């Protein structure tokens, strides 16, 4: 797509890419499913945001509203046997891979029925049956772990791969560079997916790195890379497809830089201001780059989607989420003994 590794160019311009997507090349069923999944993620996260604002959900929640397309686009090429890792902002990854809204909503309430049985909260999500092997909030920490999962996949010899989702901030960590070098040297089947949303907490990438793009790191490590509009599901799917085919063919790791933007603050529900950052004008422009409405308009103009159906996607998502939320509120908390019984396999941890 964009072959210049040094700069984001137009993709960084909030006033561009507001028009409907061009989707002719992709499969409309996949796009319709993707649209539905993005809507579900949006609605789940809005619910979590509401509950955070009401003080009902207290664990730190990092919402990915506005960033649904990378999760859904990549998940479309994840197959059974692959191993996916995420970070602190991974509700979308969890849901995109097929995770249960109830499991997520129970987890953010610390309930025993949560995906991590109430031991993790929003930042620690796991769903092995759907390929999500873990998300953790130490920035960059799962990048080497994903490489190891890729090494395991290579040893298994089934053509499976690992996927590592992380943000632009994580590319500033040593773990990222060690992992890229190791994966390139050992030809590990791993897909590195950087969701470049310009921010690491309160700091814009301009204040953290000498360039807005992080593809240059892939180039330095001799890892094949591609960059795409991370708010364009079709574009994300296109670059993912190519990368995944190369990985499964044994060519080693690939790196994707998907340029996107988060609509909410770094943590919590606030939209216009968070950890001291006001982004009003930028945010208004970025909302016109909404991955959901741009795709919906494009599908409508192709005749693949009508107003009724779209409306149904939203109402269905809302009812799924409300039901899941209500059920999760009635679920129980982990028993007291869980604190010590879940530390070691087979034995209790020492009490004192």
């Amino acid at each position: 797509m964009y072959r210049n590794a040094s700069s984001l160019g137009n993709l960084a311009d909030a006033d561009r890419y507001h028009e409907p997507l061009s989707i002719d090349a992709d499969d409309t069923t996949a796009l319709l499913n993707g649209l539905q999944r993005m809507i579900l993620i949006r609605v789940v996260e809005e619910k979590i945001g509401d509950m955070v604002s009401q003080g009902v959900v207290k664990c730190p929640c990092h919402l990915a509203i506005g960033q649904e397309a990378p999760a859904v686009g990549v998940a479309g090429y994840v197959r059974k046997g692959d191993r996916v890792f995420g970070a602190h902002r991974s509700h979308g990854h969890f849901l995109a891979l097929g995770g249960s809204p109830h499991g997520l909503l129970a987890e953010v309430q610390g309930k025993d029925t949560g995906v991590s049985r109430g031991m993790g909260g929003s930042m620690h999500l796991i769903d092995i049956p759907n390929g999500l092997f873990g998300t953790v909030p130490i920035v960059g920490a799962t990048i080497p772990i994903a490489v190891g999962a890729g090494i395991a996949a290579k040893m298994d010899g089934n053509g499976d791969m690992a996927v590592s989702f992380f943000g632009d901030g994580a590319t500033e960590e040593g773990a990222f560079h060690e992992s890229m070098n190791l994966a390139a040297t050992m030809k590990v089947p791993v897909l590195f997916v950087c969701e470049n949303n310009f921010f690491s907490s309160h700091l814009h990438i301009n204040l953290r790195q000498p360039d807005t793009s992080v593809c240059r790191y892939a180039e330095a490590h001799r890892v094949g890379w591609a960059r795409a509009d991370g708010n364009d599901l079709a574009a994300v799917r296109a670059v993912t497809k190519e990368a995944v085919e190369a990985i499964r063919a044994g060519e080693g790791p690939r790196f994707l830089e998907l340029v996107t933007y988060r609509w909410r603050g770094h943590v919590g529900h606030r939209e216009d201001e968070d950890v001291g950052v006001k982004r009003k004008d930028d945010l208004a422009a970025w909302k016109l780059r909404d991955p959901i409405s741009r795709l919906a308009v494009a599908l409508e103009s192709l005749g693949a989607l009508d107003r009724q159906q779209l409306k149904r996607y939203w109402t269905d998502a809302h009812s799924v989420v409300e039901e899941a939320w209500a059920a999760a509120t009635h679920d129980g908390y982990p028993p007291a003994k869980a604190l010590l019984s879940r530390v070691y396999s087979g034995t209790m941890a020492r009490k004192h």
Partner: protein
Amino acid sequence: MKQAPVTTGYGAAIRDGFEYLLANHPSVFTIGQGLWSPWYVGNSMTDLDSQFGRERVIDTPVSELGCTGAALGAALCGYRPVVIHPRVDFMLLAVDQIVSQAAKWRSMFGGQVCAPITVRAIINRGGEQGAQHSQSLQSWFAHIPGLRVVMPSTPTDARDLLIASVLSDDPVLYLDDRWLYGLEEELPPIEERNLALEGPRLTRTGQDLTLVGCSYSAHLCREAAARLSANGIECDVIDIRVLNPLDATLLIKSAKKTGRVLAVDGDWRSCGMAAEVIASIVEAVDPRVMRAAPRRVTLPDAPAPTSSPLERSYYPTVDYIVQRGLALVGAQQETFE
């Protein structure tokens, strides 16, 4: 003619452990720096790469964090990797992966998954190597719930506890000490042990004093006990073997019997393993049973020096332990302070 018994050194016993694991458990692989080098990790892995292939004995770039994380990732996918750090000091670059990732993985995901990674790090002290090439840090790591910490002091344990560590479903930090590599003994046949059932072991019995140590310190304790015995003082010697989770049962029992405890550790004093040993005893034993206040012998709270006279006074010796033992039983005035 009677055959001389075949003895095996501590380093060679570790190699035996790896050979057994690689030969019998296809899910085991090893990764780290120096694994293809004949000298770097001592005589503990020689030629394993040619025997088992370089896909299972992997030498890596200088990436302690990356390799430890990668080993963890493979562990989460059904393998039993051993990541090897030629020095504990270098492993510090991987502390996040050990402490915040591997040790927490099971608990933070609700006990649903396990992370059977073994991190082997070699303690390589002395020899004027100075502050950044001499650390052991077992006290740090024994502080971490979820991380089993193993320190063998004999060749048999070096082999069998390595095997048990790798076969354990929990993350294990296995620390071996180059100063023990000269020890030799006749090894019994290999038996796969459940690490969760392994713990401190009484290696000598006596009624006057309890000496407690781990790794090289346990070896020093055994030597000191032999010398003290010549002075008429009989010691219980306890080799801790598994520092975390610590099973203090044996320590408590022995302290109740002897009423005197000397805890020896080759790590620093403050918040250290020796303090943990004493605290575990003091909490459980009626003070009226104790015949003297428990004491500890540790490194002084200073980074390792390079200069050899300073180095000589830095590390606990058998002589020093003997003197502290004598002082503790009141057989002699304390001459060291």
